């Protein structure tokens, strides 16, 4: 019975992440690429995303704190973050990258600072949600159950 309850929690949580826009269809694509021959695919890809993003956020913070901000450089980093987040379906992170790139183009430092705060917020939110999702999966497996496919 515990397995059924865990599976139900997992499905509900998963649905909410899609409904609230934290994840989009691209994440589902990744889930569909996972199978018995690649059972850890989603976790591997998401881990890469975490590593990539944290490095980028650090680089962005450093770049924006410079006395003479190199907006082209900042933009290049945001472009990468936009790409990575879009590749895994971290929809809200991708969305903040758009005004961020605009601020870079306008060489608007205040805009960039605001966007950096926002993108960090969204990143840590989705990171937290994904870690919770993986924990729920692990609990199901530990209880001897199978992770249900999200429709």
């Amino acid at each position, binding site marked *: 019975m515990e397995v059924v309850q865990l599976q139900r929690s997992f499905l509900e949580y998963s649905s909410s992440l899609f409904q609230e826009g934290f994840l989009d269809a691209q994440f589902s694509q990744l889930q569909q690429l996972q199978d018995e021959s690649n059972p850890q695919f989603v976790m591997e890809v998401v881990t890469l995303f975490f590593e*990539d993003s944290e490095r980028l956020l650090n680089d962005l913070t450093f770049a924006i704190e410079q006395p003479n901000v190199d907006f082209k450089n900042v933009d290049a980093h945001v472009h990468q973050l936009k790409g990575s987040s879009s590749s895994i379906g971290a929809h809200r992170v991708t969305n903040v990258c758009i005004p961020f790139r605009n601020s870079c183009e306008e060489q608007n430092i205040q805009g960039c600072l605001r966007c950096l705060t926002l993108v960090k917020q969204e990143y840590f939110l989705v990171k937290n949600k994904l870690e919770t999702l993986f924990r729920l999966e692990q609990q199901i497996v530990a209880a001897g159950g199978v992770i249900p496919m999200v429709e």
Partner: protein
Amino acid sequence: MEISHASAISKTRAMDEIHVLAVDDNLLDRKIVERLLKNSSCKVTTAENGLRALEYLGLVGDQQTSVDGHHGVKVNLIITDYCMPGMTGYELLKKIKQSSTLKDIPVVIMSSEDVPTRIDKCLEEGAQMFMLKPLKHSDVKRLRCQLLQ
């Protein structure tokens, strides 16, 4: 009779064993495109930049060092990201199309940005297709269908 039999066999083989060289500077994207292609029964080799891709294809400087790639395995398709530091996907495309030995390999360009002038430029230079990132399973299916025609 014999000729059509042989081509039927090679067509079947082509469906099973398309060998794709996937080029992208982003590790995350490389991993995803690799899985997408492998899930569509392709053999996949990845390269992290244009130079490595050309080395694999046997083109070093402007010299063709070997007709086939490493281990004599032929590459049937090259799929490359557009925005890469150093050599862009467009520059890689040009080098491939300029090579007498490589020019017939179809090249697909991927980009996260939908820029019509960029798309036109790549198609004019001989790109088989231009695809928007992030790639989906349906994109890879469409690609296989197009390639096998």
